[in-house]
Each structure stands twice: as structure tokens, then as C-alpha cells.
């Protein structure tokens, strides 16, 4: 028997079923379809959080609670991304912890990565992408939630200013200013780290 070609579910139809009839099967399909997107956003912004499943659940509960606010002018995935981003931002604000990063706190690989990005002028890339990612997240954790969010989206995920604007609802100018200030703060963090290495 030939395999049936995969058909992506019609999200708009599913949303209408959930919104107007509280249709359980449609809601189940929505969660199944959107889970990878929601998890990618959560992991991008809160990599250290142990309860990422709880946060994903929170995102879906908000999605169902506010589903009537969605308008068809915006793709449903974009709207859900926005809900996920704002939930992450709230979680970051709730955490409040801004750890001070020192050279001695870094693992051997992370220290090697940092040494490379600080002192190696060449464009040769460091091989350990995972350690780089870990280090980048540790540095981002020293920033305030909004700055952290902007740099994660723009520099780590390669998203445009407009993407950030759509996901957060902030103005274009605000996104640019936040990114500029956040990068400046990170530059200072690098200087501080270098100082702790020397001392």
C-alpha cells in the first residue's frame, strides 16, 4: 500500500474548532504541531531551566486562554511565537538572578573558547560549538531579560530587527537601541572576564 503524502494540518481550521467549539481533538493536534516551535523558543531563551516542559505547558495554556485574541491577519505560528517569547521574558524577569561571571567559573573548554575569541584575530572558528553556546548563554545571563532576549534572537538565532519587533511588540528603534546597549554591556563583560584571568 503506498504511503499517503504528509499533509500539514490546516491551522486556521483547527484554531476555529478550538475557539468556537472547544474541540478536544483539534486542540490535541494544535499542541502536537506547535510543540517543536515552542520548545525551540524556550530552549533558546532559557537553556538552564530544568522545567522546560512546565514552561511549554504554560505557553499552551496561555495560547488556549487567549485564542480569541488571534486575528487571521497574522499566521497562527507567529502569534504563538509571540506568546512563547513573552512567557520566556516573564520567566526571565521572575528569575532575577544576574550571576557575575569569572574566568575561574568556566570549564576548560569554555575557557579555551573564550581565550580564542578574545585573543585570536583570525577568523578560524573554534571547533566546540556546544561549549561556545554554553559560554554565550552564561554571558547572556549576566544581562537584563530584555537585553538578553534581543541578543539571543538577533545574534544567536540570526533573526532580523523586524522579527524581534514582531515577536515582542517593541518598536524598531527600541529593538536597535536595546541590541546596541546589550552588545556594549557584553563588551564590558568580556573586559571584566579578561581582567579576572590576569588577576
Amino acid at each position, binding site marked *: 500500500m503506498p504511503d499517503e503524502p504528509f499533509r500539514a494540518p490546516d491551522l486556521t481550521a483547527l484554531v476555529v474548532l478550538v475557539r468556537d467549539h*472547544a474541540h*478536544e481533538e483539534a*486542540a*490535541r493536534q494544535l*499542541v*502536537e504541531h506547535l*510543540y*517543536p516551535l515552542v*520548545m*525551540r523558543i524556550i*530552549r533558546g531563551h532559557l537553556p538552564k531551566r530544568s522545567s522546560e*516542559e512546565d514552561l*511549554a*505547558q504554560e505557553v*499552551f*495554556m496561555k495560547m*488556549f*486562554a487567549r485564542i480569541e485574541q488571534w486575528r487571521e491577519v497574522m499566521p497562527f505560528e507567529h502569534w504563538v511565537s509571540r506568546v512563547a517569547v513573552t512567557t520566556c521574558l516573564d520567566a526571565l524577569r521572575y528569575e532575577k538572578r544576574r550571576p557575575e561571571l569569572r574566568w575561574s567559573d568556566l570549564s576548560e573548554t569554555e575557557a579555551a*573558547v*573564550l581565550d*580564542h*575569541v*578574545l585573543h585570536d*584575530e583570525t*577568523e578560524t*572558528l*573554534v571547533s566546540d*560549538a*556546544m561549549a*561556545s*553556546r554554553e*559560554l*554565550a*548563554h552564561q*554571558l547572556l545571563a549576566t544581562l537584563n531579560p530584555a537585553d538578553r532576549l534581543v*541578543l539571543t534572537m*538577533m*545574534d*544567536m*538565532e*540570526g533573526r532580523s530587527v523586524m522579527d524581534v519587533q514582531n515577536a515582542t511588540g517593541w518598536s524598531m528603534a527600541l529593538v536597535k537601541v536595546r*541590541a546596541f546597549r546589550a*552588545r556594549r554591556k*557584553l*563588551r564590558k563583560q*568580556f573586559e571584566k572576564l579578561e581582567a579576572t584571568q590576569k588577576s
Partner: protein
Amino acid sequence: MNQQNSTDPWTKLARVAAKAPVQSAELPFGFNTRVISQWKSQTEERAWTLVEWFTWRGLAIAMLVLVGCAGLNYEAFFSPTETLADGEPLISFLEP
């Protein structure tokens, strides 16, 4: 990616970090059921809250009507009552 100084440590670090493999995001067992049941219970809860809201308001309005009626008929309730003496015909009580 944004146009930034390629020698800037953060730019270099972010560029490498972005290449890290992304973890797969498979739906954990039971997650779907958990979310749907929580959503359903919240919907039911919301419906009950609405019923409760109307019930309390209905009760408050009923109390107001009761107090209003009692106020309007104060005299009927609290004026000294005349009673019929034993053997007195009812007609004499009703006549002015």
C-alpha cells in the same frame, strides 16, 4: 545575521554558538493529555465562575428588593396591631 565587527569577541562567539546542533523537540509522553485536561478543567472552571458570578449578583439584588419591600411596608409590619376581642364580629373591626 547582523552586520557587526567580525573581530568583536561577542560577534565571533555568537557566530560559533549558532552552529551548535539543536536538540530534537519530541513531544514527551503524556504531555498532550496533560495540557488538554488542564485546558478543559479551566474551561469548566470558567463556566462555573460565571454561574457563581450571576448567583451572587442575583442574591444581592433579591436582598435589595426584600429590604426595599420591607421599607415600603414598614407600617404594616411594625404598627401596633388591633386585635378582635372574643366574640366581636369581624365586620365591626373592618368598619371605620
